[in-house]
């Protein structure tokens, strides 16, 4: 089984992108990734496009994106794992190389979420899960799902609204240092706590925005990677898992079991432990989600996420810096692009190319934690410099 490396990365500016359609948006990151890899597009035999869709007009986004970027003819598919669609695309591209099917593959994540109005977006995301039993009669929303977890975590472990606000403040601090982020302004705890409630106890500033954006990575076999790149970043472990569609069937609401399982599988495949990780991106679609991720990923014990946070251990210079690209909260969350965007960020960090946001590297290991829905899907990917 060949080792697989990331040899090219591309990332569009995230935000409300009324200047581009879905093909044009994907092109921005594809061109950058192909140029970065220095690969001939003819060598790319598989293009996997991660996107959830339905908030933009195209129903066959993979072929639209490929046509625009001159990639028609490659094997292709669109993959969906809700907000983890990007990691699912990465996994499918990775599989095509590990299986010996192709030497070079491209994973693209793209989402165009602002072509419909905001209430329609809220509707579409709220429907994701169990439509019949949790949406039709009740009107669940995405913030409401995570609010159920927040209330439970607060009740069980004494987590406070201030703790959650602290995560948002951290995200905005790093977002202000990321020129590709949707929000590049620092905020205060008071500003978070004073923002309007969307689903109690979560407020507007506990929530990621609706975002347009794309990201792309070129993957290659060991032989090809060594020819193309001086700094290939290796995919050492991929773990993925899922949970029930109905939240009523979950055993608890203080963590995401799919993420715990995905992390366990990724650590085991990579033969590393949580303490070995130098830098991580965690799926902070809501502040509570990042807090649960600390615990689900084993960066601390269950219920001790707030301690890690309050001590500043998840900031640059701490034990395990998390979301130093601004996270979904400040960088933005173009659903299908997010997992690929996270892989781009960790690759930059491991190459030592993250500029002002660079974390100190000890073991040269980084982790991508990407969750779909409310822990309906979970992917954990471990990347390594060696």
């Amino acid at each position: 089984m060949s080792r697989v490396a990331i040899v090219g990365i591309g990332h569009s500016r995230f935000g409300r992108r009324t200047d581009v359609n879905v093909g044009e948006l994907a092109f921005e990151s594809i061109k950058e990734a192909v140029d970065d890899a220095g690969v001939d597009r003819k060598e790319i035999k598989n293009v996997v496009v991660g996107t959830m869709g339905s908030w933009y007009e195209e129903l066959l986004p993979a072929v639209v994106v490929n046509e625009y970027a001159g990639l028609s003819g490659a094997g292709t598919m669109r993959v969906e794992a809700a907000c983890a669609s990007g990691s699912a695309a990465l996994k499918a591209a990775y599989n095509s190389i590990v299986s010996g099917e192709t030497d070079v593959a491209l994973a693209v994540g793209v989402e165009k979420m602002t072509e419909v109005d905001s209430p329609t977006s809220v509707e579409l995301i709220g429907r994701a899960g169990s439509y019949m039993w949790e949406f039709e009669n009740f009107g669940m929303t995405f913030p409401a799902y995570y609010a159920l977890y927040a209330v439970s975590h607060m009740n069980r472990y004494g987590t406070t609204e201030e703790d959650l606000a602290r995560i948002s403040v951290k995200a905005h601090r790093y977002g202000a240092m990321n020129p590709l982020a949707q929000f590049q302004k620092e905020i205060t705890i008071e500003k978070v706590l004073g923002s309007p409630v969307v689903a109690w106890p979560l407020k507007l500033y506990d929530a990621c925005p609706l975002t347009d954006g794309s990201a792309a990575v070129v993957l290659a076999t060991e032989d090809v990677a060594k020819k193309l790149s001086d700094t290939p970043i290796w995919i050492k472990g991929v773990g993925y898992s899922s949970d029930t569609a109905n939240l009523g069937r979950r055993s608890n609401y203080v963590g995401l079991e799919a993420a715990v399982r995905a992390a366990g599988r990724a650590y085991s495949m990579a033969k590393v432990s949580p303490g070995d990780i130098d830098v991580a991106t965690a799926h902070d679609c809501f502040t509570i989600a990042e807090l649960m991720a600390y615990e689900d990923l084993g960066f601390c014990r269950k219920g001790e996420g707030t301690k890690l946070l309050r001590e500043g251990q998840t900031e640059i210079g701490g034990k395990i810096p998390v979301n130093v690209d601004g996270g979904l909260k400040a960088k933005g969350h173009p659903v299908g692009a997010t997992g690929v965007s996270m892989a781009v960020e960790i690759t930059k960090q491991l190459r030592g190319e993250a500029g002002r946001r660079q974390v100190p590297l000890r073991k040269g290991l980084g982790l991508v934690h990407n969750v779909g829905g409310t822990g309906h899907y979970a992917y954990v990917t471990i990347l390594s410099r060696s």
Partner: protein
Amino acid sequence: MSEQPSLHSSRPLTLRFDIPISKTREFWDSLRDGKFVTTKCSECGNVTFPPQADCPRCMGSEFEWVDLGREATLVTFTSVQVAPASFAGSGPYMIGIGEFRGGVKVLARLEGIEPKKARPGAKLRIEARSEKGGNPYYVFVAC
């Protein structure tokens, strides 16, 4: 950045789904009679909610209906302030997950309690509702 020119698509699409319920029709009929029932696998005894005709534990397809009773305990909750488009105008509303004796958990609207006063562990009663021209549904009411 500033808004850029766009072409408003002139072909809006309305989707209305006819969702089959024949295999779990008893649930909806019972709800109309004010009873809250679900499926229990005749082979392995697994009780599932939402009701389903085929057991996800043993894959058996023989089942019976069991009455879950009315009493449940609040596990967690939220108060939705920003509603989806199709719930526009229905104002802030609460949603809770209640646990019945035996461990079955159900998500539904939660009434009769203020968000600030609600606590996990609160006693709930489930009530069947149906509105003229609408589908039957159920809500938790705080005791």
